[in-house]
């Protein structure tokens, strides 16, 4: 109840009674044990951007669904991991890709790899390729992901096609996108 009140205070559309659907989605997510903070932030974003209540509800619903799928794929996960996984799924990654990444990086936090995955897709790399690359680098630390992203960024800025930049950056790090996950040559 207190949580619902806090959410209502945070999200003007809910407070104004214009978007009961948003409240219902958030309540339902909370009952399912999903993190509600990302959903509240999504509603706040929509409100700040003066989106229509229906649009806010649709966005919150889509995110809640993706969070549930991410949890199924990742198993035990932090809120940030679920959030990053939900973004990756909404960009077209498959649940089994997330599971493979979890298995390949057992014990390691997935926020950075999933963030890199989403960034690559946002820069125009096909989601299949981006996923394969992120899984291929899974045996390494976050530093390797950072270095990889830096190389891809540089090449795209230099005008290379996104997919070509990824292949070039993989070659620079001594890997092939076709290698099995985590194995060094």
């Amino acid at each position, binding site marked *: 109840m207190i949580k619902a009140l806090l959410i209502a205070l*945070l999200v003007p559309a809910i407070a104004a009674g214009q978007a009961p659907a948003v409240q219902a989605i958030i309540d339902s997510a909370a009952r399912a044990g999903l993190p509600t903070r*990302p959903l509240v*932030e*999504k509603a*706040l*974003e*929509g*409100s*700040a*951007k003066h*989106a229509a209540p229906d*649009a806010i509800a*649709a*966005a919150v619903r*889509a995110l809640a669904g993706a969070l549930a799928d991410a949890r199924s794929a990742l198993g035990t996960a932090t*809120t*940030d991991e679920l*959030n*990053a996984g939900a*973004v990756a799924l*909404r*960009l077209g990654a498959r649940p089994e890709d997330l599971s493979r990444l979890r298995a390949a990086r057992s014990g390691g*936090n997935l*926020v*950075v790899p*999933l*963030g890199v995955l*989403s*960034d690559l*897709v*946002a*820069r125009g790399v096909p989601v299949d390729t981006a996923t394969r690359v992120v899984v291929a680098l899974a045996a390494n630390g*976050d530093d390797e*992901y*950072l270095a990889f*992203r*830096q190389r891809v*960024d540089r090449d795209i800025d230099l005008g290379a096609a996104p997919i070509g930049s990824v292949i070039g950056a993989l070659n620079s790090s001594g890997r092939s996108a076709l290698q099995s996950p985590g194995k060094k040559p």
Partner: protein
Amino acid sequence: MSESIERVVRELKRPVAVSPDLDAKVMAHVLADVRTPVPVRRLWLWPALAVAAGLALLLFLPRGKDVPFTLVAPQASSVSVVGDFNDWKPTPLVKNRAGAWEARVRLAPGQYNYAFVVDGSRWVADPAAPRNAVDDFGSPNSVVTVAL
């Protein structure tokens, strides 16, 4: 190089025609950008700082860092940053002498969506940061990931 290839090279080194409006087209794009590149003179002077700023550009930062948000918008009268980290309520940026607006926000590890709001109404994604390809409300966000 054989004589015939020398003749080819001479021919190919001759200037080619350039549309008189090429410069104007380029400058139209340049001046339409609210965002100009972040001044990097300091980076060339101090390589150590350049490394740090390079990482900041990647926006993957160590645990609980003061994350710099910068937008170069000399003509703007106000710029703020809004995002998951401030419940989408504006945090104002301060203008420096070069026309860059800056603010530092303390962020715990995690992934955050954010955008700039210029002159109170114009939403601008951070061109120096990764873009979130999921755009639910018709104005794209940038993403900052603070590493563990």
